[in-house]
């Protein structure tokens, strides 16, 4: 009986809070620490489970994959995840949660095959309520693996190497004249 009343009150209180408009929705008001902690566990557990069956191709370390992944990264990701020599952008500063700077070494300590599967899954499916888009809607798995291959080497690249690797081959662009 008592528990019943307690549960009912909790429901009502939650409803009142949701409709009251008191929740600070702005991306510039951070979560409470406990909320961040809970959300991060929710995200990591979910991704770990969903990506557990994904096997990375064995030939990720190839020049062709780097060129395909590099050009795509520069076009689609660098605005949020930055590039060598670029410390911040409007998107990297304004989004909450902030997009991690992928030119730095590993943010999440996992062994490498798990990291590869995790990156692949995140790029393909995106992350809810974070600004990280699901790229699988418009890009096939091979193209996503190429981006994963590029991310593996991105922290080692200096600005010159980055520029050369990510430029769309001029040979191809000539054909569009």
């Amino acid at each position, binding site marked *: 009986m008592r528990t019943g009343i307690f549960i009912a009150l909790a429901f009502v209180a939650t409803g009142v809070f949701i409709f009251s408009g008191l929740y600070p929705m702005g991306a510039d008001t951070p979560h409470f620490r406990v909320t961040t902690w809970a959300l991060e566990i929710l995200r990591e557990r979910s991704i770990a489970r969903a990506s557990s069956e994904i096997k990375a191709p064995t030939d990720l*370390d*190839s*020049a*062709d*994959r*780097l*060129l*395909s992944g*590099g*050009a*795509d990264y520069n*076009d689609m990701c660098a605005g949020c995840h930055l590039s060598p020599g670029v410390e911040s952008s409007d998107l990297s500063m304004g989004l909450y949660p902030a997009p991690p700077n992928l030119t730095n070494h590993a943010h999440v300590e996992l062994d490498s095959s798990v990291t590869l599967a995790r990156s692949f899954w995140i790029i393909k499916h995106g992350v809810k309520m974070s600004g990280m888009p699901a790229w699988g*809607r*418009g*890009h096939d798995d091979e193209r996503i693996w190429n981006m994963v291959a590029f991310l593996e*080497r991105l922290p*080692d*690249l200096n600005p*010159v*190497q980055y*520029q*050369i*690797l990510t*430029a*769309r*081959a*001029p*040979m*191809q*662009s*000539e*054909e*569009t004249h």
Partner: protein
Amino acid sequence: MNLVTKIATALGATTLLISLSSNAHEASEHMKDAQSPDCAAMAEMDHEKMDMNDPVMAAMMKQCMASDAHGEVATTGDAHQEHAHEAASTDSDAEHNHEAAAPVAAAVVEEVHQH
């Protein structure tokens, strides 16, 4: 048209527009903002440290040989060599300035091969 249909149509049209503009893009659709690889900068790199077994190095070579070949691919021999040198002396020609990088890329390749 009743209100619900109107709203549905408006939503549908908006969704369609948004999905069209952000649709799956083939690599070729990015060509409008194509940028030539800055191969001249490769010449300034420390060639001692270049390791051709490293995919990053191999990929850079591939990029710079591609811009060198300019659609003819590096198999056209002498004629192609001349073409490259000619381009080097007219590197003020903005439209074709990536050709100026050709001799540089060739020189880099030569040097790497010597090691």
